[in-house]
């Protein structure tokens, strides 16, 4: 009502004006009727009415909302004030823009990977069907989203009633190239209802439907808008043309709209291919039939009226029959028992699925907390600056209060100034955030993983930035505003030229703010040091092998049309070509080697009795050719290397690492002893003789302890067919080596596809999360420290300036320069000490949140804490020493003459 009238206050003003005019007319008529002349009558009526303008004003005021009415006025005043102090304005806007920008950028990422729903119809209805497997899962995990097997998918699809439609989906990198160097595309396997469930309609052509998803189907491809633009230049002829996927020609049947990028947040799909066509690409050992291959993920749209709870109960009831029907018959008894104990449940999928989220959600929340603290410190600085300015404006405020200005009105005006600052800061911050968030994504992108996130500004992000602006305004503006207006005008006016009623109380507030800044920046400095040291430790870690000059060459002969029988010959030829390529020092075949990306493990146990001791112990297995240890720089501590004489028909031999000897045999004297490798998936057992002992290495992650590893000849334990990986060591730039290897391979057969990975890069890229934390927290820690020290310097300088007279008098009365220096430094010291004490407590409490992200350090690592405290104490003291020396150099006569 009130607001409505406010918005229509011009209208009401006119209405009342008319009404009052009517009143005057009637009154005049009355007077004329009583015999007055018209002129007289009009005057009398007016007299009787009173002050017309005042009446209208009174009504107008009733219709107005005070705040809005004076806002324009306050804004103009605020702009004038800010333009009068360009230096202050610049500092304020800059620090707010940095703070708000950093927070917004991190929030943008969080929004993209965690908070935002998929851009599909009714995303809240989407749920994933997950396998509950408390004791873990065994089998083959060939891709990133291997949550279920195909057999499970078929069972779930045919039996479930909870979802109105459901689909299976899995990621798969396809090679687009026609030979030579691999060109990867982000492919996805999709079941027939994928597009229908997600409510996607084709931009061109048609999409994969249940018609396309029948056993034994031929592959067709639906391409994404981005892929269509990139590979076909957006030509209409794309539909109906063929693309080469892992050497197989596949027809493109349709294009999806631009806003649909799949349900894998962090990646956007290039091509979708029906699940049923998988055997075309992988041959006989296909993943449709392999019941231990986990390569699909099931997502469905919950039936109307079904709650997730009801769906859970339904799935739980189904679980036993689903897993009984999907059981891999090759599994050993223990694995079968575990498999049959699995259960099913739903998990919300409105925000899509994301391995990026799994890796970065925690770091991002932590980073936004850190960035928030930086903003807090910046706010404290601004609050201090405003407090100092409030003193300067004391007289103006006193005069305004004395002539009847209300305190509320003055506070509002001060706050308008702060709000203007924080809004300008927020606008700059949002602009900055656009670049920062893009830089962050670039930071996370690796040679292995191209990250795609939709980082366009949306309402959520803008709301967040606006919220920050208002919050910061209150944080840094309210206190100074209250303080500035809470004065007794008479006292200020009486104090004459110096205008100082500033007692200890006002200093107390500023000192508390600075101590708080010191405390908070200690927290950030400490956490930054923790993350930097974690990253340092991990990158300096001795992983047990060399990374410099090692190139990983992946070769695939599938497209060249070799048969299984022909391949071993080609295989040897390829190794010879690579070995003889210019620049190559040494080369060896290797599969599932340490930190190489892929791995597999099996149960191992000593062949000579004592099987109980090593029960349930697993060893990783590397299949390698002779020379592998020299290429990788893994020391051979005893025995011999794998040799060319270890052929498929020769006795089985193995080189084990120290951890193997220690953990399986309990002794280092194991040369010549034998152990059994038990393949629980395919129920086979092989007995190997130990011929050598190699040094320990990291296997799947730099963070883990050294695990048990066995190296076996790839002739005796063959790996993948028609493909191989060769590790190369070289002392020349790897770019030249790549070119030479490409030429060498082409001489064997140009249709063989080649992919390169620089081993050092590959290792470093496993540390991207740690590097992100170290870089950003380091930056924020530094920023926090600088802000706090500037704040400290400012406040001490201000206090010294305010106490000029007092110091002058002290000196005149005989105080020495050193005693003045000591006095100021003692004041600062108390402040710093208080801040550091509080900060230490906060840091120890806060560091617990980071514990899972640390490596080789406790969250309360004393050395790091002491380092942080000393560093901050030293810098703070230096900052305080500058104004202290200025105070000590004061000429008492000058100070007193100013009086």
């Amino acid at each position: 009502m009130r607001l409505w009238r406010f918005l229509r206050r011009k209208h009401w003003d006119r209405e009342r004006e008319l009404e009052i005019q009517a009143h005057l007319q009637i009154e005049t008529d009355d007077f004329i009727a009583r015999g007055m002349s018209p002129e007289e009558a009009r005057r009398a009526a007016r007299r009787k009415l009173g002050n017309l303008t005042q009446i209208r004003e009174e009504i107008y005021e009733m219709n107005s909302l005070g705040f809005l009415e004076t806002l324009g006025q306050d804004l103009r005043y605020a702009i004038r004030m800010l333009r009068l102090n360009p230096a202050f304005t610049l500092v304020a806007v800059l620090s707010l823009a940095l703070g708000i920008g950093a927070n917004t950028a991190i929030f943008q990422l969080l929004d993209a990977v965690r908070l935002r729903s998929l851009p599909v119809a009714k995303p809240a209805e989407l749920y994933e069907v997950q396998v509950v497997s408390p004791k873990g899962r065994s089998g083959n995990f060939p891709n990133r989203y291997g949550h279920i097997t195909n057999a499970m998918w078929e069972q779930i699809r045919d039996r479930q009633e909870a979802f109105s439609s459901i689909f299976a989906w899995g990621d798969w990198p396809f090679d687009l190239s026609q030979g030579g160097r691999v060109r990867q595309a982000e492919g996805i396997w999709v079941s027939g209802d994928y597009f229908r469930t997600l409510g996607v309609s084709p931009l061109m052509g048609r999409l994969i439907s249940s018609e396309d998803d029948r056993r034994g189907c031929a592959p067709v491809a639906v391409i994404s808008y981005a892929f269509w633009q990139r590979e076909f230049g957006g030509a209409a002829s794309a539909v109906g043309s063929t693309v080469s996927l892992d050497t197989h020609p596949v027809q493109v049947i349709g294009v999806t709209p631009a806003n649909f990028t799949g349900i894998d947040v962090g990646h956007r799909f290039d091509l979708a291919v029906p699940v049923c066509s998988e055997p075309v690409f992988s041959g006989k050992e296909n993943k449709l039939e392999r019941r231990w291959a986990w390569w699909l993920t099931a997502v469905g749209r919950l039936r109307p009226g079904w709650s997730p709870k009801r769906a859970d109960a339904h799935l739980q009831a189904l679980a036993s029959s689903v897993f009984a029907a999907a059981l891999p018959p090759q599994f050993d008894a223990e694995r079968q028992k575990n498999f049959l104990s699995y259960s099913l449940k739903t998990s919300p999928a409105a925000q899509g699925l994301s391995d990026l989220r799994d890796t970065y959600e925690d770091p991002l929340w932590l980073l936004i907390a850190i960035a928030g603290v930086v903003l807090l410190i910046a706010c404290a600085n601004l609050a201090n600056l405003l407090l100092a300015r409030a003193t300067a404006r004391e007289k103006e405020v006193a005069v305004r209060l004395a002539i009847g200005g209300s305190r509320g009105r003055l506070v509002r005006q001060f706050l308008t100034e702060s709000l203007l600052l924080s809004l300008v800061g927020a606008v700059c911050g949002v602009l900055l955030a656009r670049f920062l968030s893009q830089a962050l994504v670039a930071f996370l992108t690796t040679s292995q993983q191209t990250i795609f996130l939709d980082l366009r500004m949306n309402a959520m992000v803008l709301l967040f930035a606006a919220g920050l602006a208002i919050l910061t305004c209150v944080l840094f503006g309210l206190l100074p505003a209250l303080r500035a207006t809470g004065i007794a005008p008479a006292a200020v006016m009486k104090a004459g030229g110096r205008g100082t009623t500033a007692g200890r109380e006002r200093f107390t507030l500023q000192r508390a703010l600075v101590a708080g800044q010191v405390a908070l920046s200690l927290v950030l400095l400490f956490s930054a040091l923790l993350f930097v040291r974690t990253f340092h430790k991990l990158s300096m870690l001795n992983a047990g092998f060399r990374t410099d000059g090692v190139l990983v060459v992946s070769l695939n002969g599938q497209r060249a049309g070799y048969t299984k029988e022909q391949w071993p010959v080609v295989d040897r030829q390829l190794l010879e070509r690579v070995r003889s390529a210019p620049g190559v020092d040494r080369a060896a075949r290797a599969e599932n080697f340490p930190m190489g990306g892929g791995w597999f493990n099996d149960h191992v146990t000593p062949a000579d009795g004592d099987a109980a001791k090593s029960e349930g112990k697993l060893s990783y297995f590397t299949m390698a050719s002779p020379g592998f240890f020299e290429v990788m720089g893994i020391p051979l501590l005893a025995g011999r290397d794998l040799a060319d004489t270890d052929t498929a028909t020769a006795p089985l031999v193995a080189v084990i690492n120290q951890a193997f000897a220690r953990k399986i045999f309990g002794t280092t004297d194991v040369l010549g002893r034998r152990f059994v490798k038990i393949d629980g998936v395919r129920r086979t057992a092989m007995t190997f003789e130990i011929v050598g002992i190699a040094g320990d290495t990291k296997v799947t992650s730099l963070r883990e302890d050294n695990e048990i590893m066995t190296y076996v000849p790839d002739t005796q334990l063959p790996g993948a067919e028609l493909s191989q990986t060769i590790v190369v060591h070289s002392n020349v730039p790897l770019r030249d080596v790549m070119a030479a290897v490409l030429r060498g391979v082409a001489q064997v057969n140009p249709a063989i596809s080649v992919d390169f990975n620089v081993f050092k890069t590959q290792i470093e890229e496993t540390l991207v999360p740690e590097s992100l934390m170290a870089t950003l927290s380091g930056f924020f820690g530094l920023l926090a420290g600088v802000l706090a020290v500037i704040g400290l310097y400012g406040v001490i300088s201000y206090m010294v300036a305010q106490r000029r007279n007092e110091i002058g008098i002290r000196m005149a009365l005989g105080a020495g320069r050193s005693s003045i220096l000591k006095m100021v430094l003692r004041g600062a010291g108390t402040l710093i000490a208080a801040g550091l004490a509080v900060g230490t407590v906060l840091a120890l409490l806060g560091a617990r949140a980071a514990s899972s992200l640390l490596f080789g350090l406790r969250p309360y690592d004393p050395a790091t804490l002491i380092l942080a405290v000393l560093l901050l104490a030293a810098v703070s003291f230096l900052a305080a020493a500058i104004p202290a020396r200025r105070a000590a150099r004061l000429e008492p006569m000058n100070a007193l003459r100013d009086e």
Partner: protein
Amino acid sequence: MAKRDTPPLSGEMLPGTLDMLILQTLVLGAAHGHTIAHLIEHRSESVLQVEHGSLYPALHRLEDRGWIASFWGTSENNRKARYYRLTRSGRKQLATHTDRWQQLIRAIGRVLQPSNE
């Protein structure tokens, strides 16, 4: 009409009384501002002199609270005028106000009367 022995009380009214008086004059039916002013004067036998101007902010306030509603009509002598009528909540408001007022009058009366003891 003129009774000069008691001076008019204009500008000395207790706060809130004008609202009550306006509501009371509207009990009999809709009226425009001029009529309301004259009715109050007339019925108080000119003790209460309403400054006509102050009537309009009061009317505006009452309408804002939803106690009265207004419409444009034609006056007795054919002038366009804004008419006011009592709303349901205005009627209720008047009843409570009148009660409170009576209580107040009685209370003040008891205080001012010389005590019997």
